[in-house]
């Protein structure tokens, strides 16, 4: 999933204060829990209360989209609802927010979330961790399903480095050493020989910025 956290309300109030009619667009997509209809409603309520304290009356229209990052989908759903709005507040990740900005070039589009990374959630513990950096050259087949690019602090392809201590990273003693995890997993799978293969430096061009669909 894409991991986001809500922006502080006063920051949002600062963005929005020049405007009165605002469309709050939720996104049912990749976050957990999705910033959908409920969060759009809750956020509009909080902003309305916050606005009142600043002697500012907002009029919010609340809606949601299955995936804001799909410009065709977002445009189809949101365009019919945009009438009268002076600004758009997007609950999507940075991608969805940018998509809306493209769809509504005449309107200011504000992010309601800070976007952090592509990660996974350990629900019981309530922890979100980065899992993928989108490098364009997936190594998971040979690393026991554990990505060293995202999870090793140094992004090493031929780990581990000498700094691993009791399974933890020398840069952050709370963080598991990705290469130790990889070693343990490959051992379990009886595929330790994979570690003997030298992996050449990454081709950074592969991560790129554009691919054909």
């Amino acid at each position, binding site marked *: 999933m894409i991991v986001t956290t809500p922006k502080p309300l006063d920051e949002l109030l600062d963005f929005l204060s020049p405007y009165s009619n605002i469309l709050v667009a939720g996104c*049912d997509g990749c976050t957990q829990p999705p910033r959908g*209809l409920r969060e759009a409603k809750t956020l509009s309520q909080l902003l309305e209360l*916050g606005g009142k304290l600043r002697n500012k009356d907002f009029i919010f229209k609340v809606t949601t989209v299955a995936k804001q990052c799909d410009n065709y989908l977002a445009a189809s759903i949101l365009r019919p609802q945009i009438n009268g709005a002076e600004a758009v507040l997007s609950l999507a990740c940075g991608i969805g927010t940018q998509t809306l900005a493209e769809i509504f070039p005449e309107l200011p589009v504000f992010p309601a979330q800070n976007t952090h990374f592509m990660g996974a959630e350990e629900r019981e513990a309530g922890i979100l961790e980065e899992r993928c950096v989108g490098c364009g050259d997936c190594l998971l087949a040979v690393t026991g399903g554990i990505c060293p690019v995202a999870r090793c602090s140094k992004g090493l392809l031929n780990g581990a480095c000498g700094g691993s201590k009791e399974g933890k990273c020398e840069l952050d003693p709370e963080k598991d050493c990705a290469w130790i995890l990889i070693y343990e997993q490959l051992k379990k799978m009886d595929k330790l020989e994979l570690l003997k293969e030298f992996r050449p430096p990454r081709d950074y061009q592969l991560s790129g910025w554009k691919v054909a669909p």
Partner: protein
Amino acid sequence: MVSQKDRAQVEEIIDEVSGKVYLPPCQIACPLGEDIQRSHAMLALLHLEPEEAANQIIKIGNEIYEKNPLFPLCSHICGLCEKECNYKDETGAVRRRMLVRLIAEHYLPYLETKPPLPAPTKEKVAVIGGGPGGLMCAYELSKMGYQVSILERNPELGGALQYIPRYRLPQEIVNSVINSLLRIAHIEVKCGVQMGDGGKTLKDLKSEGYRAIFIATGTPVPRPLTMEGELVKGAELEGVMFGLNLLYDVNQGNVPPRLYKGKRVVVVGGGNVAFDVARTARRLGGDVTIVCLEGEDKSTKDGIPADVEEIEGATQEGIKIVYSRGVEEIIGEDGKFRKIKCPRCTSVFDEDGRFNPKCDRSDVVYVEGDVLLVTIGQAPELAFYRQEGLLNERGRIDIDQLTLMNNLKPGIFIGGDVKRVGFAAEAMRDGVIAAESIDRYLKGKELRVGRKKEYESAPIPKHAHYKPQPELVWAPVEERLNFEPFEKGFTLEQAVEEARRCLCCGPCRSCKACVALEFQPEIPDIKYNEELCVDCGNCVFYCPCDAIKFKSPRGVRFDLTLCRACGLCIAVCPAMALEMENWEREHISALITKAASETEKPKILVFRCQWTVLPPLDRKFTSNVDVIDLPCAARVETFHILEALQKGIDGVLIVACPEEDCHRQTGSKEAQRSVAALGERLSQIGLQDRLHFCVVAPRHPEELDKELEQFRQRIEAIYSKESR
């Protein structure tokens, strides 16, 4: 129009897949299927006014009486439900027996005036044997409208109940329960009736107009001592008798109070009846020793069968126990009992689990005494059954186990201990089964169809904390060596506390205490709008009762048999795809609007879990406070809290149960979490003081008053600052 009473009736919850009936394990264990969880839930919320509470207890008693008119007796001698209690493995079973004792204490005076059932008008049915099984069968038949006569050989009814020592089961309770039952159910009684052996025959009863007969004559014959299939010599000696006869004589008042003063009494047997005999003999002044085949360690296959409480009580009373010894010979002197020869018992049950004791005759001790009381079990008296042709070729009672009808003679039903020795409640269950069969038989219906039910326990609720089990309180030994009951009952407050421990393991719809308590008109359904669902799985993850499952490949499925209708799924659904019947979002919004318009400034709105408040329900609040009761604090949505603030409410107070009292396990905890998260966001705009979460124990409205007062002061301070 469905009446409140009908809506409050429990439902049979059948699992769609397995076809089994979901019930709490205690109720499955109770041979009479008492609605145990329901009565616990109601006891836990007894009214604070003692008089009103007493009325409620009688109401609870009436419900139990419907299924079990002998429950005041069970509250002294049973406890099968406690053996299956899910609390047992945590800190000890909920003491149901003592809770029923308290209900019985309130109920017995009422029982004398309880209105009778409608007078029966249907066919005449005879019940032979007036023990627990016979009484129960007669009651059930009378409820169905049959005219029942009980024929009893002894001068009084009660059967095996007449052998239970009065320190365990007081005579006046036995008399009161039986006499009231006869009156309420219009049961005719004929005592002193001998069946067979020159007395009446079944043919006689038929010609007297009885259309069906239930026979439950129990096991009145004490078993004699044997060793390897041979009768043990010396049973004719003076001073040797059956313990069972002693119990009967003592209860009948035929025995001087210090019969065994200065005498050494040896009791043979390791069951509960042997302990009854030993403790009775001790109370008659004897110096008592128990000799039993079984070993001390109850956890082994050859462990002593008597209950732990009996062994503990007897030991406290100075009774000695000689374990793992058989009796090879009773030795006398001048025709009087002197001692028994006891070889070491090496094994009680054989590999097939059959009672087949083996002794090592080279390892022998002698136990001396003046009196020998043999209490090693009882057997039925089968002569009458033989004479009437009710036995099969192997000499066993020949019945269909499902219907209890004799396979050889239709219209004759047999149950209770005579069929298989068991607990009183099990004999009573046979009475219920026979009554149902008799009804079908007399109506010409199929006897077997739909009778076999399989039960399954619902998933066990998990709690973060488990409260300790209250100790049983017994009178000190020096005060209890008489025939007065020595087990101290619960006070009302103790009973309420104990009932609060009940985990309520059964499905809501098999309990419905909340409906009976008039919290809500019915258990609400959850409505799922699949079109809005975004497949996030929050509802499945948060549901405390495992009632929501993923459907493949998309969407979720609600198992309303397991749903406890807390509303947590609704509050955590990011898509607002769920609604709760009777507690719809719009309905709550309308209540908020009303509260905002009707209360005075500074306006305070309380969202309260309804389990925290009762009783009394109608607490008065100041004119600036309004209360919205919810099925659980987990039903509170952030949406509603913010809506209240938007509509001009100055402060919102959320009242939940303490975590260990939460009827939905995690409802209170999750409500606290979500209120805290909202408080964090409100602090970003300076409104954090407008929202407060607190827990209030059920039946402690003063705690709510205190919390509310503190909150009111806080809100008034904010308000007066703002007004300035």
